[in-house]
């Protein structure tokens, strides 16, 4: 410490270099790097209408819950969303090889073979979960995060006793009428809120176990 004489009333206190607070460098994770593309999955997807199996509709994907997965650093739900809901391989270097014409099983909401209505449990504002539908697919292959020299993800065979269930909350639970002005049918059906693997019915491996008590009724 040293003092610099300014005048008879004022001295300036000057710390030595050793006393000065040293600037601290901090590592900022991901600074100046664009997030990987596969961490921003599409916000809409195509699937069958619960009211008409042959009609293809658009569904929005829950924004808040996807962000929550990302904030928690959960990769698996995001991979499942790409593969089992959108039905496409996530844009990861080296993953295009998984996009083969493997005829085993179905993948993606568009490949759903069954649809149930009613969750038989409260969900948010819906005391009976009646405004929810569940689409069932039977995928044979899954993707998981397992980094190697070739790729971040790995393909694996799913056990045969599983089905994949995709839940959507309907915008218009009773079915939306055609647009009164232009007469065109509606484009979107609802929001995909949940997607997960569940065990299948031992008597019908294409349907979820306990589907009679799990859902209110089967639509198709």
């Amino acid at each position: 410490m040293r003092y610099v004489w300014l005048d008879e009333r004022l001295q300036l206190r000057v710390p030595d270099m050793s006393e000065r607070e040293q600037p601290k460098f901090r590592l900022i994770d991901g600074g100046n790097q664009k997030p990987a593309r596969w961490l921003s999955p599409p916000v809409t997807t195509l699937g069958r209408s619960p009211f008409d199996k042959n009609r293809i509709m658009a569904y929005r994907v829950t924004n808040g819950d996807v962000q929550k997965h990302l904030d928690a650093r959960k990769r698996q739900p995001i991979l499942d969303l790409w593969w089992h809901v959108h039905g496409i391989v996530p844009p990861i270097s080296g993953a295009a090889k998984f996009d083969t014409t493997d005829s085993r099983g179905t993948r993606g909401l568009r490949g759903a073979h069954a649809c149930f209505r009613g969750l038989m449990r409260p969900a948010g504002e819906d005391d009976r979960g009646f405004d929810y539908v569940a689409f069932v697919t039977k995928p044979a292959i899954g993707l998981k995060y397992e980094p190697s020299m070739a790729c971040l993800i790995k393909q694996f065979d799913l056990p045969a006793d599983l089905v994949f269930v995709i839940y959507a909350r309907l915008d218009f639970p009773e079915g939306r009428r055609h647009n009164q002005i232009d007469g065109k049918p509606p484009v979107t059906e609802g929001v995909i809120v949940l997607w997960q693997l569940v065990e299948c019915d031992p008597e019908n491996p294409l349907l979820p176990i306990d589907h009679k008590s799990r859902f209110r009724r089967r639509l198709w």
Partner: protein
Amino acid sequence: MGMLTATFGEYTPRALYYEDADALEYVRVDAPVVYRRIDEFLTLILDLETREPVGFKIKGFRNFYLRTIKSSPRTIESPFLRLITVLEDLMTELGEGFFSEAPRRDAYQTAADIAAQDQVIVSDFPKAA
């Protein structure tokens, strides 16, 4: 690979409330898992291969939280809420008769064991109506 790790980081298990799904979920691993429905409130989360429990999900959590937990003196007094407390409150509300079936009772016990062993704290709550 390095870039992704740097930008995304690793998963640290914690209880998360999913607003659109209306479920409070705790899972130990970020890997493929199977969801086994126990009843309208509880789902166990199982390892894909071994089918050993690795977590659980409390469904319809919003209503239960706003009605039972949020106003509880224990919640108001405590600076944090333990997941085991949430499960205990849920089991208390369901009552003894609800647990007459052994598989269901065992499933709730499994969930409670996971919450207790991992000392899970809940800090992610539904928004008030």
